């Protein structure tokens, strides 16, 4: 139990009596940091969430933006750090399962996953254990459900040795009229539970995620859920088929805090009541107590609200897919969440007491140590040949190849270089999306890196989802880091006019009192009106000019965007400064494209983009005068990369990652 004495007092005041054991267990998980966002809520309000394309901002299972009049895109990122630290394979696998169901709950078909993975030093044995477990967990789950992992990043730095980060983003698409929400509606409508049976797995997972890790955390393995991707696949198909009949009033996934959180949120959002009978919940094991059923985090379950007259039609769909479908209760008028077990009431309370009455955390805040938030922790002060072998900057094909990144025939190949591109066959148009994920110890750098990746693919950035990973907020320094980086995230997104439509906060990333550095991971989506206009950071032609664009402030940033997106017909290929400068990006572009390049100026300060330009005379005559740019070299007819001060690199040379 994690409830503090003050919270317990407040619960007694709210209820006007002592809570029942079931109610106490429900408060315990719902008021945990993981479910309630009690430390982060007031800061997250600062984020810009509105925009022309935004249909649904934060507050639902996922954010939604408009691609065109007919098609919507759903997007969300989530962490599964704690479970992955204790059991990397299942922890990462169920992280994928959970984020998929968030997208599914909106009525959208999941079409892409991306991950941001953070481990300790590459050469450490523990890192290899985590890396193998996490990657195969994501691969086995994602591959089995047929949702492609289309890219991501893997970072290897000592502070993440005992507290790896697993952040997974999912993108879904739907026709506009198929969008669903989670608010329960309609007195007398049925509350339907679909999917796996409920067991004792994952009990207290939300509370576990709201504590620091220690050497004893291995004992928390029972708090880690176990995934069944086969059931998830059937659940996806059945839920989407049910949604397409328009007979589903509301849908919600069962994630952290299981039935407690799903149903209390559905009732709170609908401003109505829900009454359920626990003996109807299909169980995996005997003798489960009411509170265990209510907070179990068994995977692959969803809750639906269905009108009684439509129930048979909906049930038939789930039965055809071999998925359990059970009425466990009904929607009531008065805002009361009533839980019965064998007809006797075990909980009876206002659902908003669980979802909204949590007292916000009012801890002390200390402004952050600039070293932890301002100085990049990537050491890129190496020559290009060394960087190509450095695990942080080397190609990650050894990871991507374990993911079925092509299923769905939407993924533009190759992946793993620049933003990931997809043309969406489902939309029956040439529309494409560009997706980038970027993690930094600075919100500004994370947002700008993702932003530049999207622009360099020729796309217009339209929305952001984020995952904020921090240590224990009860320490003023860490709470200060959080406040500072959320403010920075808000101001950067405002300057660039990209709304944040969903996100996730993960605190307590500490092991044996050693906190991870603040880690802001940003996922961004851009739109390509015609996928054929997309650009890759892969050199294409010979004797083309290489132009560098330098950026010092927001004005430059916006000017570069405008120039690039209006000159796509003259740009053959382009790339951006990832974490180690444009020269590394150019080198990789030469290797992938099998085209030689000669760079005559080096180093290039503040360079943000490089462009392979076809007609340099036209570029000169049309370019906006305010843009800071220079010609730094050209593509050649041989197979060498020659960079001033770096010597000569043979394109055909084989390179292995060296930790």
């Amino acid at each position: 139990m994690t409830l503090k004495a003050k919270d317990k007092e407040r619960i007694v005041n709210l209820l006007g009596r002592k809570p029942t054991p079931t109610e106490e267990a429900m408060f315990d998980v719902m008021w945990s940091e993981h479910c309630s966002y009690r430390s982060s809520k007031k800061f997250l309000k600062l984020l810009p969430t509105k925009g022309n394309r935004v249909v649904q901002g934060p507050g639902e299972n996922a954010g939604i933006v408009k691609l065109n009049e007919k098609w919507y895109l759903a997007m969300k990122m989530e962490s599964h750090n704690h479970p992955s630290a204790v059991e990397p394979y299942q922890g990462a696998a169920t992280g994928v399962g959970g984020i998929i169901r968030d997208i599914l709950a909106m009525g959208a078909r999941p079409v892409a996953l991306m991950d941001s993975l953070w481990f300790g030093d590459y050469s450490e044995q523990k890192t290899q254990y985590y890396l193998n477990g996490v990657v195969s967990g994501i691969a086995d789950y994602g591959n089995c459900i047929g949702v492609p992992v289309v890219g991501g990043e893997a970072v290897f730095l000592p502070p993440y040795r005992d507290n790896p980060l697993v952040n997974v983003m999912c993108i879904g698409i739907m026709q506009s009229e198929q969008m669903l929400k989670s608010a329960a509606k309609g007195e007398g409508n049925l509350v339907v539970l679909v999917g796996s049976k409920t067991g004792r797995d994952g009990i207290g997972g939300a509370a576990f995620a709201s504590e620091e890790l220690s050497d004893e955390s291995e004992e928390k393995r029972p708090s880690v859920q176990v995934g069944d991707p086969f059931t998830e696949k059937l659940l996806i198909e059945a839920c989407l088929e049910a949604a397409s009949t328009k007979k589903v009033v509301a849908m919600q996934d069962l994630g952290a805090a299981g039935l407690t959180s799903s149903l209390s949120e559905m009732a709170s959002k609908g401003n109505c009541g829900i009454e359920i009978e626990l003996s109807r919940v299909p169980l995996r094991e005997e003798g489960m107590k009411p509170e265990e059923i209510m907070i179990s985090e068994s995977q692959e379950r969803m809750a639906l609200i269905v009108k009684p007259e439509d129930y048979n039609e909906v049930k038939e769909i789930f039965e055809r897919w071999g998925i359990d479908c059970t009425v466990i209760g009904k929607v009531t008028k008065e805002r009361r969440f009533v839980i019965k077990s064998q007809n006797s009431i075990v909980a009876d309370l206002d659902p908003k007491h669980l979802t909204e009455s949590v007292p916000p955390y009012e801890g002390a805040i200390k402004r952050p140590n600039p070293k932890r938030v301002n100085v990049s922790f990537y050491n890129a002060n190496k020559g290009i040949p060394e960087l190509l072998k450095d695990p942080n900057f080397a190609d990650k094909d050894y990871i991507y190849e374990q993911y079925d990144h092509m299923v769905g025939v939407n993924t533009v190949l190759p992946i793993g270089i620049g933003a990931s591109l997809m043309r969406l066959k489902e939309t029956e148009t040439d529309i494409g999306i560009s997706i980038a994920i970027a993690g930094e110890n600075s919100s500004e750098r994370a947002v700008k890196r993702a932003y530049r990746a999207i622009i360099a693919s020729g796309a217009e950035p339209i929305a952001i989802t984020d995952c904020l990973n921090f240590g224990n907020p009860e320490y003023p320094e860490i709470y200060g880091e959080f406040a500072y980086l959320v403010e920075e995230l808000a101001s950067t997104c405002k300057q660039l006019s990209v709304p944040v439509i969903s996100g996730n906060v993960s605190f307590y990333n500490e092991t044996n009192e050693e906190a991870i550095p603040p880690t802001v991971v940003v996922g961004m989506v851009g739109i390509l009106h015609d996928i054929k206009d997309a650009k890759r950071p892969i050199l294409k032609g010979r004797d083309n000019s290489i132009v560098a664009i330098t950026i010092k402030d927001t004005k430059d940033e916006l000017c570069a965007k405008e120039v690039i997106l209006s000159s796509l017909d003259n740009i053959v290929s382009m790339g951006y400064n990832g974490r180690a400068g444009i020269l590394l990006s150019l080198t990789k572009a030469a290797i992938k494209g099998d085209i030689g390049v000669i760079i005559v100026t080096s180093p290039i300060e503040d360079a943000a983009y490089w462009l392979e330009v076809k007609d340099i005379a036209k570029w000169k005559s049309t370019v906006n005068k305010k843009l800071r740019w220079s010609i730094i070299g050209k593509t050649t007819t041989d197979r060498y990369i020659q960079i001033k001060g770096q010597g000569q690199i043979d394109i055909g040379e084989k390179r292995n990652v060296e930790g």
Partner: protein
Amino acid sequence: MKFGVVVFPGSTCEKDCYYALKETLKQQVRYIWHTETHISDIDCIVLPGGFSYGDYLRAGAISAQSPVMKEVKAFANDGNLVIGICNGFQILLESGLLPGAMGINRSLKFTCKMQRLVVENTDTPFTHTLKKGEILNIPIAHKEGNYYIPQEGLNKLRRNEQIVFRYYGENPNGSVDNIAGIVNESRNVFGLMPHPERAISPLLGSTDGIKVWKSVIEWKAGR
């Protein structure tokens, strides 16, 4: 020509096959549900890739026992065309329509990448428009693609010229004799690990998959 794409619980590539056949090849196509027992409107049955029944027990083992497979066997025994891709190939092996078995990849890892193949046999409905020795780029995506058949069986495959595709360059999974795809003795049942439905556009990295589908369509048109 009308194709039927079987949907098993856990198939993941049925929509991709449907899309390739309908939108890229402009053919008629419908889904066949795994419980169907009477199929009379189809010229070629496709068993798609994926993780039918979650690959539980053994890849393809449970699907091989599903109601539709009885019908697929009868359909094949009548000389009609059947293509099993990836998990579909595994199902064909498990149901005895093709000889041999699949083991886990030598790397013990799932591998998804563009793969070069060499065309070994053009005397089949699936490859008659290709050239012997031609190199194709068609992606693979599997964890259990390490094809195995005992020496005697392998000799028979060679003798009867049942080996259709071999991996070219590095063998990605350890399969015996670099085998990527085989036909049955009567050459109407084709199993292959690579995914021709994924190689249908330059954006997807290759258009070589179209050549395989076109071969089937032209063969049918020539009957």
